[in-house]
């Protein structure tokens, strides 16, 4: 695999920007929330710009790992600070940048303990960026946990609907995941006998016996899978999403759940390809159950956020199904779906968050006719819903399509079930939209203001990204292929 070192450490620059933003926010007095938000917007904007630059500057002809930086960190344990991007991590960095920037803008009206809120968000995103770019197992684990532990406070302090329960459940579940990941990581590092945490060195073929790979892969799959919302470890996810405040839901469903899937890919599949092949059938089964279950559970929900929460379980199931096919197309589709679902769900939560902020209800039955009182807010909701349904020309369509095509080849039954479930899911999402946005107008909400232009900016950005990648899927597929084809070709 080609490895090109960076002249300028842009990846570290992204991390340092987050860290600097964090420090600046902590240094600003809490009495000046306006300045805190400006710092937040500026710093997140810089990271987004850097992510876009990386996306454009990545040399697709060469592929492999680019913009690499490597410093020996703890020599006695073989730990190095090793960052680089490839076709899998670049879409994720871009996704993080977009969701982070729009998330900060979405929370522009937050007044309650704004300083701590933005500080925690920055810490969380620092971990997310770090995880997507890191190629050292030690740092992958560190960043994984850095991105998790701010969640407890973010949900428990600023959330709603059983927030303390949701926060506690989420934190315990996710830490239980890392309780499986750390022993598995150490097991592989010791097994290799190389005395290094360097992922690139460890993934050389023949480092691990097939038995070790099968064993470790299960731990990685469950450990990271908890975060990716893999059925039956998903139960924290709807509860956590509903309890979380808007920006946290956006970042959480948009980016954090992708960390789980990305962890399965980067650590599980990269290190234990034998284990991946061995367990693929089971992964496919769990993913399909997740897709069907998410849709069926979603049908019964009366709370808008629960609807999205369960649809996330279902959509992340598609990612899982893509990974389970063990094909280039499946991988491409899975990564594309990760990106598209991230943007889609961010838009979804951001529009529902606006409606909730104004009406103080998320109960579908209490809403109605919003398209008349809040035409713009409902427009965003409808676009998000259509994307979730998988309407062509919107981003999610391509991810789902590619995953389904490859799954029909490998697992015809699972593919059929998944497509059937999604058709049902489309019906129920559209009914939700119908009940909230159309139908008789609820007099109670008639006086409420619509989304202002300024508050609409983050949502417009998300919509335009959805449309852009819906119309030109090759913008991303070309990139992902630079990583997925060599990975499959390198399989034993």
């Amino acid at each position, binding site marked *: 695999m080609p490895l090109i070192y960076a002249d300028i450490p842009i990846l570290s620059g992204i991390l340092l920007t987050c860290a600097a933003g964090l420090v600046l926010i902590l240094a600003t007095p809490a009495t000046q929330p306006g300045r805190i938000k400006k710092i937040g917007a500026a710093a997140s904007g810089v990271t987004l710009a850097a992510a876009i630059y990386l996306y454009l500057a990545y040399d697709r002809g060469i592929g492999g790992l680019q913009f690499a930086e490597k410093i020996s*960190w703890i020599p006695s344990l073989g730990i190095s600070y090793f960052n680089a991007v490839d076709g899998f991590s670049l879409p994720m960095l871009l996704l993080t940048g977009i969701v982070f920037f729009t998330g900060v803008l979405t929370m522009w009206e937050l007044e309650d303990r704004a300083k701590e809120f933005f500080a925690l968000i920055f810490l969380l995103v620092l971990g997310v960026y770090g995880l997507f770019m890191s190629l050292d197992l030690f740092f992958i684990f560190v960043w994984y946990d850095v991105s998790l532990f701010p969640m407890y406070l973010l949900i428990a302090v600023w959330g709603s609907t059983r927030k303390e329960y949701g926060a506690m459940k989420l934190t315990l579940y996710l830490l239980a995941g890392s309780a499986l990941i750390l022993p598995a990581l*150490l097991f592989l590092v010791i097994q290799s006998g190389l005395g290094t945490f360097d992922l690139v060195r460890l993934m050389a073929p023949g480092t691990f016996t097939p038995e070790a790979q099968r064993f470790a892969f299960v731990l990685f799959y469950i450990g990271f899978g908890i975060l990716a919302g893999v059925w039956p470890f998903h139960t924290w996810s709807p509860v956590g999403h509903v309890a979380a405040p808007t920006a946290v839901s956006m970042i959480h469903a948009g980016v954090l759940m992708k960390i789980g899937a990305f962890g399965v890919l980067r650590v599980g599949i990269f290190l234990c390809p034998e284990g991946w092949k061995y367990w693929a059938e089971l992964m496919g089964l769990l993913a399909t159950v997740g897709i069907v279950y998410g849709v069926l559970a979603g049908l019964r929900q009366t709370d808008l956020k629960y609807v999205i929460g369960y649809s996330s379980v279902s959509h992340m199931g598609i990612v899982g199904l893509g990974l389970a096919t063990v094909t280039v197309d499946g991988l491409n589709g899975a990564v594309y779906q990760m990106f598209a679902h991230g943007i889609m769900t961010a838009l979804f939560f951001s529009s529902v968050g606006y409606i909730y902020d104004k009406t103080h209800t998320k109960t579908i039955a209490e809403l109605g006719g919003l398209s008349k009182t809040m035409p713009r807010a409902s427009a965003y909701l409808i676009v998000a819903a259509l994307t979730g349904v998988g309407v062509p020309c919107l981003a999610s369509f391509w991810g789902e399509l590619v995953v389904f095509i490859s799954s029909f080849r490998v697992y015809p039954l699972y593919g059929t079930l998944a497509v059937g479930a999604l058709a049902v899911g489309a019906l129920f999402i559209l009914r939700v939209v119908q009940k909230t946005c159309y139908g008789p107008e609820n007099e109670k909400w008639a006086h409420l203001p619509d989304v202002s232009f300024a508050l609409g900016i983050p949502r417009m950005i998300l919509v335009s990204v959805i449309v852009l990648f819906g119309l030109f899927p090759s913008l991303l597929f070309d990139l992902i292929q630079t990583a997925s084809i060599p990975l499959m070709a390198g399989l034993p």
Partner: protein
Amino acid sequence: MNWLAFTPELFYVAMAAVFWGLSMTREDHRRDFHTALVLSAVGVGVSLASAGATADLFFESYRVDIFSQAFKVLLACGFFLVVVLCNELSGVARRLHPEFYLLLTTSTLALMLLVSSVHLLTIYVSLELSSYSLYVLVYLRKKRPRREQTVLHYFLIGASASAIMVFGIALLYGTTRTMYVVEMASILASVISQPAAVVGFVMTLAGFFFKLAVFPFHFWAPDVYEGAANQLTTYIATASKAAAIAILVRLTSLGHGSEALAQVLVVLSIVSMTVGNVSAIVQKDLKRLLAYSSVAHAGYVLIGMVSMNPAGYAGAIFYSGVLVTLKFTCFMVLVKVAADGANITVDQLAGLHRRSPILALALMLSLFGLCGIPPTIGFIGKLLVFTAAMEKGYFTLVLIAMINVVISLYYYLLVLKAAYLTEPKAGLPPLALNAGDSVLAGALIVVITVFGFYPAPLIHIARTAAAVLL
């Protein structure tokens, strides 16, 4: 004989004499706290100055090397930090303050002697000096219900542990015909498979299992933590634990990787962490909760010793520093919140984020550290001992430890919830911290996070210290 290598101990003897003198003066003109503060700060300097010393003293029953000196610096720092918290020592009657400092000094002196001792009798005498100082210290707290019972409880368990230890020493002497640790190491290599040697060995360790609060010698911990003055509990939870870890490391390194010994340690480790974590869940009193968390941590530390390789010993040494830092941070918050020297419940932390944001932040980081979540030094400590255990193939042990970490997260989060989520009770003013306290809290935050991200220098020290053991 190189007396310079013995300066830290001599300094603490002199310091004890100063407080002995002070205890005989009238209480209205004394400045006990400031005397203690200055002297203990000088103590840190003295132990730092002799950090590089190496010597064999007193007929080779006392060894000064990088291992012992590193621990002496840690103990001196721990002692100094505890004294810093004593500016409002309201849990102890004013007239008894010199005695309080006197006994704290002798206890520290004893712990310093302990980490350097390489003769079983010196080890035993040092241990007893430290324990007897602590028995009296626990009693010095102002009168409260069940005070006598607590002290008696502590004393009886301590005395039993000592008795078991002496019996173990006798057995060891019987099999090896020597009291010198170094000689014993070479003789034990050939006889470690004999039951008498293993039994004697485990019984000898019992005295330190008591100090470290390892199951089944942990029953004193919750009562004593609750019954002792807050500052004293801080001392017991930090300095005293560090010295116990040091001597356990020194002694287990004699075991030559004995299978039987390792199995005993594995069992004790698993039971300790599980009992500690499960019991901590239901605690309402913050000190009792931290006592059970100490029991759990004793279990994690033992993982480092189970592996019986240099990496494991280095991990345990590192872990002792981690425990001192993290536990001290927790107790600092506790002492500051409980301004009148009373015990506090977890609920009384309510609204800490408003009353003192910096203490709340310090508390959060120390709790995450105790839980072993990166990027804190607590994670590095766990990583080191887990890696060492994994090298020896103890996968299940590591997995059980990680499951315990998840259990412990639950009660740490309950504490955090009280501090961050609830609003202060009406009428509670913001906590008045003086500049020194704020700087100290800030410094602890920096230490916990910066060395959590970049632990290489500390790991190097721990490895160097572990290397001289074998």
